[in-house]
């Protein structure tokens, strides 16, 4: 089974897209405790995604793991911990759309998957229907780069 590590940015976007539960069904999803705490801060302002992620973690659909990570310049505690967790689990990829974090992962030659591509993957693997995938991309259109949205729509076969 595919093993994915989620950072806050990736998890939040996929929760808003309404496909995080599907991703957790398709792949083994992990999140460091630091990332989980970052996400849960959103509960204070009633962000839906924070409650969705909390429920998935409580139901063990997303595994929250405690790891120790040193601070890295320009990264938050959640991203640094996601990097450590990826190495510890020998995961397949980190799911993130965070420019700085992705630049760091490129330097470290770590595989990553953006949320738009995670949705495409779910569509390819038929974990969601084409229509669901297109709808979910629309839900996060305002949060991702237009070119990345257009590319994902094209890959799924939308207009």
């Amino acid at each position, binding site marked *: 089974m*595919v093993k994915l590590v989620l950072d806050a940015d990736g998890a939040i976007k996929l929760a808003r897209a309404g496909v995080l539960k599907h991703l957790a069904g398709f792949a083994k999803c992990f999140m460091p405790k630091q990332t989980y705490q970052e996400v849960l801060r959103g509960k204070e302002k009633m962000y839906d995604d924070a409650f969705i992620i909390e429920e998935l973690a409580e139901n063990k659909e997303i595994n929250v793991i405690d790891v120790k990570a040193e601070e890295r310049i320009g990264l938050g505690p959640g991203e640094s911990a996601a990097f450590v967790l990826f190495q510890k689990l020998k995961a397949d990829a980190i799911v993130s759309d965070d420019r700085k974090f992705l630049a760091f992962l490129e330097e470290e030659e770590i595989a990553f998957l953006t949320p738009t*591509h995670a949705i495409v993957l779910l569509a390819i693997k038929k974990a969601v229907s084409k229509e669901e995938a297109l709808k979910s991309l629309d839900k996060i259109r305002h949060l991702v*780069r237009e070119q990345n949205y257009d590319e994902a729509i094209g890959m799924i076969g939308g207009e």
Partner: protein
Amino acid sequence: METVSYPLRIPEEILALAKLRAKEEYLDQSTALRQMLYLGAEDYVLSLVETGRISVGRAAELLKTSVQDIHRLAEKHGMRIGATGEQQKKSRLTLNRLSRK
């Protein structure tokens, strides 16, 4: 957010603006000034995220807010802070690999 006192010379015009804001928003002048300073910091932090100098998580930490709020602020400022074209290409390689698994 924890505060520290710091001696600062402020242009009269800015102080006048802070007075106006304080009056219109029923605040004291120091609070109005702090809010204006915070708004400037918010813009600066977002520009650092947009140019890939800091992550969203670090931005949230610096502004003592949530990652969700950083997304909302970026949207409000019309900023798209996601993966660059080059990063998306690399992500596609992972997508191709995982879709064969």
